[in-house]
């Protein structure tokens, strides 16, 4: 009896050991694949960009004010595309940040539970609308609307897609900010009310400062979403690289250019083909920069409550 039991126990242990190791390696492989894909993307971008930069000097790339890779006399200055990207993102953030934060303040601090439980899922549903729909919304609805206000607004301009991208990322900015505000401990709100503060004072003086890190993260994530957004600008901004800070002018963003070229039939290995990798690399660097910034902000404003 005792002997039989011993054997059983020993066998069981070995069996579990093998299972544990198998599961661990499968999980590790899954985790590693994400890292591998990211590395592969960076490698491809770097290799193709190296090809591009062997034809075009980095100085020209960064200082030339024209981007005409498809013309007979090709010029490769990234500034017009960068400018379009920044401009579209700036317009988008001007819309998304105030609206998003106000939505978050309302949902987190003012809305009755029932309203919050209805509105938040609805808001998150907006994130599921395909971006191409937003593109047509910008071109066929918002632009004509804006033309009523600004009569000589061209049919393609940055303002309209910028506003629409802003609307598009409101749920995103709102949802991240709301999570940050709801994470502020109830004890801090109670302390504020007990001091005789109103709901608005509590929100503005206690909850929002305590949620700064999360709101800053929402802001930066919004920038990342806006700079990476493709369809809306490709459809409604005009795809014309244009070095201007006037949002009423047509322009092209980095993403819109990549779409434009990727859809054409440029021969593999040509400079035009390689130029989209250089543009993609710039986009990647921008996103990386903002991620680092988000990290720094988060560290600086981290509050110990």
């Amino acid at each position, binding site marked *: 009896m005792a002997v039989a039991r011993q054997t059983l126990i020993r066998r069981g242990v070995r069996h579990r050991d093998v299972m544990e190791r198998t599961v661990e390696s499968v999980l590790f492989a899954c985790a590693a694949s994400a890292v591998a894909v990211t590395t592969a993307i960076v490698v491809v971008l770097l290799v193709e960009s190296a090809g591009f930069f062997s034809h075009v000097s980095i100085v020209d790339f960064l200082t030339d004010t024209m981007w005409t890779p498809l013309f007979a006399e090709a010029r490769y200055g990234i500034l017009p595309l960068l400018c379009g990207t920044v401009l579209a993102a700036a317009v988008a953030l001007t819309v998304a940040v105030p609206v998003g934060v106000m939505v978050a303040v309302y949902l987190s601090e003012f809305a009755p539970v029932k309203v919050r439980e209805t509105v938040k899922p609805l808001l998150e549903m907006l994130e599921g609308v395909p971006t191409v729909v937003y593109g047509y919304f910008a071109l066929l609805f918002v632009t004509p609307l804006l033309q009523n206000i600004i009569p000589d607004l061209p049919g393609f301009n940055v303002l309209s897609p910028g506003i629409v991208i802003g609307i598009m990322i409101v749920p995103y900015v709102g949802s991240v900010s709301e999570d940050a505000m709801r994470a502020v401990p109830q004890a*801090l709100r*109670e*302390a*504020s009310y*007990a*001091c*005789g503060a109103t709901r608005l*004072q509590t929100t503005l*003086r206690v909850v929002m400062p305590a949620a700064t890190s999360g709101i800053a993260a929402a802001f930066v994530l919004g920038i990342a979403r806006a700079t990476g957004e493709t369809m809306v600008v490709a459809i409604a901004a005009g795809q014309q690289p244009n070095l201007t800070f006037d949002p009423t002018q047509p322009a092209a963003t980095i993403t819109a250019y990549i779409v434009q070229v990727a859809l054409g039939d440029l021969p593999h290995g040509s400079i035009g083909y390689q130029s989209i990798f250089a543009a993609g690399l710039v986009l990647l660097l921008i996103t990386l920069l903002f991620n680092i910034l988000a990290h720094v902000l988060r560290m600086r404003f981290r509050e110990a409550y």
Partner: protein
Amino acid sequence: MKGVMSNPVSVGVPSPQSGSTTQRNVKSSIRDLNFFYGDAQALKHIDMEIYEHAVTALIGPSGCGKSTLLRCFNRMHDLTPHTRYEGEIRLFPDDVNIVSPEVDPIEVRMRISMVFQKPNPFPKSIYENVAYGLRVRGVRNKTELDGRVEAALRGAALWEEVKDRLGEPGTALSGGQQQRLCIARALATDPEIVLFDEPTSALDPIATASIEDLIISMAGSVTVLIVTHNMQQAARVSTYTAFMYLGELIEYGPTNEMFTRPREQRTSDYLTGRFG
């Protein structure tokens, strides 16, 4: 707390230290108070008088309603939906029922401040923590703010420790200092009543002793209501003690009498540790 601040709302002159036998004024009178969370009745027909410039302790086992009663005084329950007050808590000298729906809870909180169970300083500087209640009342004058912040920090026995680092975050202080900062925050607005909800339950014995000394010294100038789980604490700091059980006020009287000669069997059982 030294009488440094001008006091627009409180009445009378500071009475002698607690423990004296002089006649006390009634600061607040609870009359047939019932309180409901939804359909559940948490307080049942409470009647009691709170004496001015004395420390009154509320004791009883968990769930007896002592914290619920305390939070009626600054209308904290208004923040929770589906709560209902019935009856009266009259505040003197105005003789106004502070739990009446017609009374603005913010006005009540302007005169009755609170210190919580866990120290909960704002993620702001030490100075701004104390100045908060004044700022929300619209005080902007720098000289006035400086004076009141200093007086409140002295009142909370924290001034000497923090006077050279008022700009540092309040959250960087130790637990006991944070709780004294919260007491300073509660004192800065010159309240008539200060509510303490188990103020030492998150603190070590040394910090607890300093908070208890502070509460005893405060009683000269404000009325203190304190909820505590700790019967020794009630005996040490309070002049009057109320024993509550299952939402009812079982016994209420001078602390020394209740601890030596309780009138009710249930009080006696609780005090001797038979339940709770």
